[in-house]
Every structure is written in structure tokens, then in C-alpha cells.
């Protein structure tokens, strides 16, 4: 009886091991595909320079005023720097 139990247990372990091995190889395949794709994406050189489009919408006066105020501050010497 004990021998029969041991044999069954061994057979179960082998079957389970085989199942896990198959799953592992499948997962590895997917990871490799994603890695290849990511490596390709990372090699893409993204450097286009685009001039301002004549189709760009006009900003209203409030937004233009904000941009002007910000530019004014950025172009002023800082208080700390001017001391």
C-alpha cells in the first residue's frame, strides 16, 4: 500500500513539474517578446523640430497677458542676484 502511495505521489509530482515547466517556458516567451519590442521602441530617435504653425489658434487676451507677465518676471534680474 505504501509503495502504491509513493508511486502515485511520484507520478503526481512529475506531472505537476512538467506542467510548471511548460508554463515557465510560455511566460519566458512573452517576456522576451515584450523586451524585444521595448528595445525597439527605445531605439527610436525622437528629435523632430516643428516651426510654429500658421494654423495654431490665437490665444485670448487673458492668456496672452499671463504669458507676458511670466516672461517679464523671467527676464528680470532676480532680487537675490541683483544684491
Amino acid at each position: 500500500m505504501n509503495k502504491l502511495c509513493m508511486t502515485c505521489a511520484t507520478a503526481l509530482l512529475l506531472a505537476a513539474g512538467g506542467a510548471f515547466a511548460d508554463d515557465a517556458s510560455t511566460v519566458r516567451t512573452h517576456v522576451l517578446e515584450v523586451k524585444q519590442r521595448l528595445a525597439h521602441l527605445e531605439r527610436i530617435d525622437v528629435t523632430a523640430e516643428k516651426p510654429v504653425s500658421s494654423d495654431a489658434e490665437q490665444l485670448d487676451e487673458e492668456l496672452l497677458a499671463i504669458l507676458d507677465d511670466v516672461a517679464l518676471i523671467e527676464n528680470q534680474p532676480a532680487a537675490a542676484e541683483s544684491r
Partner: protein
Amino acid sequence: MGRGHAVRAPALILVLSLLAPSTGEAAYRFGDGVYLGSASLLPDWAETLQRARDQHPILDACVADAERCEGYLRGIPVLLQRARPLSRERQLQLINRYINKRRYRGDRTLEITSALSEETVRLPSRWSTLLEFLRRGGDCEDYATSKYQLLRALGIPAHDLRVVVVFDRASRDHHAVLAVRQDDDGAAWLLDSDDRIYRGQPFGYRFIYALNETSIWDHEVDGDTVFPVTQPQEQPEDSS
């Protein structure tokens, strides 16, 4: 998936990539991309995100007290303060135009020649953080990432923002724009470095991939058959 399928999968990727151009005239939608994985899978992007996190205290200190701003950051507290009460559409218009006024600098592509093969390899330029871009300028993906960071500072959540890398059919060049989700159906506006904001109309871009601070999406391949990876459920987040 059987072994035969596994062997055929790379070929399938290639075929799908070649077929992909037909999808380019559609407007960008957040639901269209195939989830590829965590943002950490692109090392250069992950490093940029980490630098942005490291630089966050500098930006926070500047916004809290303008006297503590370094010269190149002096305008940011005023910009954010004046932008906060605006509607989202006007915030997008303002931030798009503010960043587009900055200096284009496309000199960070490296060409490395192998001593053995004499083959020259052109390495793509490095992503910049908002602070790095404001300090020294940058190229198109840096415009997009800087808009991303400013809109995050204005409270737009990460799951509503993506930097999208595209192929511009007109210039035959790769380009980057910022996509901002407009509704629950995934409709998006694209903020371009030429001052335009695309509100769903076709514009000659073929979408290649997109990323934000959490994830990467592929727009060229059919992920249902090639990449059986499940995207994690997006969690509500602190939008600050």
C-alpha cells in the same frame, strides 16, 4: 500557447508593424493602446522619472516661496498661480504655448562608431525633466514631458496624460506630443510643439507608443494576440 505559436510570434509582430500605418488617420484615443508594461521597463524613461522625483523639492520650494527660485524657474510660481483658476481647456492652451516658446535644442543625439565593425550607431536623445528643459532647452519629447509635468503640477492626474511618440508622415520623422484625456470614452487632445492643439481631427501622425509615469502602451501591434499582458486596474490617485 504552444511552442509553434511562440516561434511564429516575432514574425507576427513584424507583420503587424508593417500593417499598422493604416491606423494613423484616426484620432488618438486612450483606449486604443496595448498595455506593454510598467514605465520602469524603459530604463531611460525610468531614470528621467526618478530625476523628476528628485527635483520635485526644488520646484515645490520655488512655488511655495518665489524668493527661493533659481533664475530659470522664476516664472513658474506665477504661471501656476495664474493657471490654477482656469478651465482645463485654457490650462492646456496656456501650458502648451508657454513651453513651446522655449528654446529648441536637438543636439543630444550621440553617434558612436564601433572600432571593430566601423558601423556607426545613432543613439536616441535622452529624455529631460521639466527643470532640465527650462534650464537648457530640449527637443520635441522634452517639450511633451515638460507640459506633462506642468499639467501634473496643476492637478491633472497621470492617467489623463500620455507622452505619445508618433511618426509624422509629412516630415518623415519621429515626433512626440502630449495627449490629454478629455472624457471617459478616452477621447484626447494632442498638444503639439508647433502650437497646435488637435481636438480629434486627422493630422497625418501614425501613433507608435505612449507612456506616462506608470505605464507604456504600444500603438503598433495587436496586443491581444502578441502580448497577453493584463493592464493593472488604474487606481484613483492623489492628483497633486
